[in-house]
């Protein structure tokens, strides 16, 4: 069929003069949609009420989606590389939208297993494929600024949650006028949830199609005007060789970077998971928190903004100072900030908020910089597939981070009675986790030559852009 063949990599090679600045919005239109995954808490209580079930039973929906994200990114990475970004984005959009539609069917028929199958399994596959689909393409279009390019896209994932949370609240209010989003105990009806899932599924499909239509891969050998690969390759750790995904996972550097990402994400999740109760517990006098519930909600919003901004700002900065130094900042700086949070965070609300915001910006930066780090170490050949395999660290950290923080807090007392002191063991443990990541980052070395792909004469063909790159 002509439409399906238009999705092939061969038909997505950019013609001469194609603006590379069309690629970041194409990537953003996918990431802004799949970032919804971090806004599921908005309708969690409504789902609990509709299915008359436990928090855990509903929480499993999100857990399945995140596990499927890691698995599909790891397993599907090579397929994405072989078939190109357009087909990958289209498949992602189909799975993501189908996840919402099957989920809506599950809500309408009160069959929770259909929501697991829909949003969890199908949606999770859409998440994983969609997350990695534009990364390799962006790196190839922006060999001079890979951190900026991937930072833009992955910032979209953080932005997706910012977009979906208020949008979901407004849609639920629209479909169920009795629902009051300002009241924490108010729940939306099943009909409103069905309407929300259908609207999001169809709306996201349309937005993701913008990405499908606009994305292109650069012609082989293309490079931006005035760009000399020698200037980048001259930096420490940056290779001009190519390493396949199969070889990459056999290198020490891949697993050290896996540990780096795992530690950075584990530490960040420690704060994200507990943000709202944490600020209330830190400032408690005579058993009563001096921080209002609305203010705690504001704190969570502020953290989300810093998480998103950190993805773009720090990842772009890594183009200037290098990937290894920026991770030394994320991990080393994070250690200092976590230690300060534990030791003096309770001294003032402003200090607490400042420390937590910078920590969360490092958390976002860690996600956004890792594709460029992989490019430096393994080249562009199969960087998307390698990135997919590395994202299993995210899935593992998604389990480890909450386990660490909740395990310590459960031992300290009941929710609503904790104080700043109760958080110290968990926070100092995070300092230790970051120290492990810091050492792992220091140990990362260039990939030995035996893992490099043999270079052919085709690799020498260079097509330099005539016009200044837009």
């Amino acid at each position, binding site marked *: 069929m002509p439409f399906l063949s238009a999705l092939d990599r061969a038909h997505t090679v950019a013609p001469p003069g194609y603006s590379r600045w069309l690629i970041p919005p194409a990537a953003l239109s996918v990431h802004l949609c799949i970032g919804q995954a971090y806004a599921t808490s908005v309708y969690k209580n409504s789902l609990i009420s509709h299915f008359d079930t436990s928090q855990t039973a509903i929480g499993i929906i999100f857990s399945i989606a995140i596990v499927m994200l890691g698995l599909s990114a790891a397993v599907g990475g090579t397929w994405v590389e072989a078939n190109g970004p357009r087909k990958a984005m289209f498949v992602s959009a189909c799975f993501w939208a189908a996840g919402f539609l099957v989920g809506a069917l599950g809500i309408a028929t009160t069959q929770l297993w259909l929501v697991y199958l829909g949003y969890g399994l199908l949606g999770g596959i859409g998440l994983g494929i969609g997350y990695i689909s534009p990364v390799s393409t962006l790196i190839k279009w922006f060999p001079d600024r890979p951190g900026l390019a991937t930072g833009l896209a992955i910032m979209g994932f953080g932005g997706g949650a910012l*977009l979906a949370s208020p949008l979901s609240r407004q849609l639920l209010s629209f479909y169920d006028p009795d629902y009051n989003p300002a009241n924490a105990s108010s729940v939306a009806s099943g009909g409103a949830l069905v309407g929300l899932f259908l609207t999001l599924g169809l709306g996201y499909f349309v937005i993701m199609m913008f990405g499908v239509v606009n994305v292109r891969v650069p012609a082989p050998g293309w490079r931006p005007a005035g760009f000399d690969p020698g200037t980048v390759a001259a930096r420490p750790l940056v290779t001009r060789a190519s390493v396949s995904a199969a070889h990459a996972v056999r290198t020490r550097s891949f697993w050290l970077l896996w540990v780096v990402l795992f530690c950075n994400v584990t530490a960040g999740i420690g704060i994200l998971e507990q943000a709202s109760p944490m600020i209330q517990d830190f400032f408690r006098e005579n058993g009563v928190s001096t921080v209002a519930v609305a203010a705690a909600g*504001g704190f969570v919003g502020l953290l989300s903004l810093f998480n998103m901004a950190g993805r773009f700002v720090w990842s772009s900065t890594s183009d200037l100072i290098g990937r290894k130094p920026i991770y030394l900042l994320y991990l080393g700086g994070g250690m200092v900030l976590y230690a300060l949070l534990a030791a003096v965070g309770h001294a003032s609300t402003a200090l607490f908020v400042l420390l937590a915001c910078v920590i969360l910006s490092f958390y976002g930066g860690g996600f956004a910089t890792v594709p460029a780090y992989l490019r430096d170490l393994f080249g562009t050949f199969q960087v998307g597939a390698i990135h997919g395999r590395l994202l299993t660290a995210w899935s593992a950290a998604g389990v480890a981070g909450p386990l660490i923080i909740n395990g310590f807090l459960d031992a300290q007392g009941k929710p609503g009675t904790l104080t700043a002191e109760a958080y110290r063991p968990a926070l100092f443990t995070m300092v230790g986790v970051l120290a492990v990541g810091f050492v792992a980052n220091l140990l990362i070395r260039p990939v030995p030559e035996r893992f490099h792909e043999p270079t052919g004469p085709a690799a020498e063909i260079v097509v330099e852009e005539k016009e200044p790159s837009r």
Partner: protein
Amino acid sequence: MTRDENQPAVGQQRLRLWASWLLVVVLLGYGVVQTARTAVNLFTH
């Protein structure tokens, strides 16, 4: 596809650039503004 079909017209490409950046700016802007309004509660409550 032939080369002519592939060659993007300058005007059409500019329109695409505007439309796609406008879409992401509107979506992201909506999220940022709404979240910033929530974040203000931290300083007013």
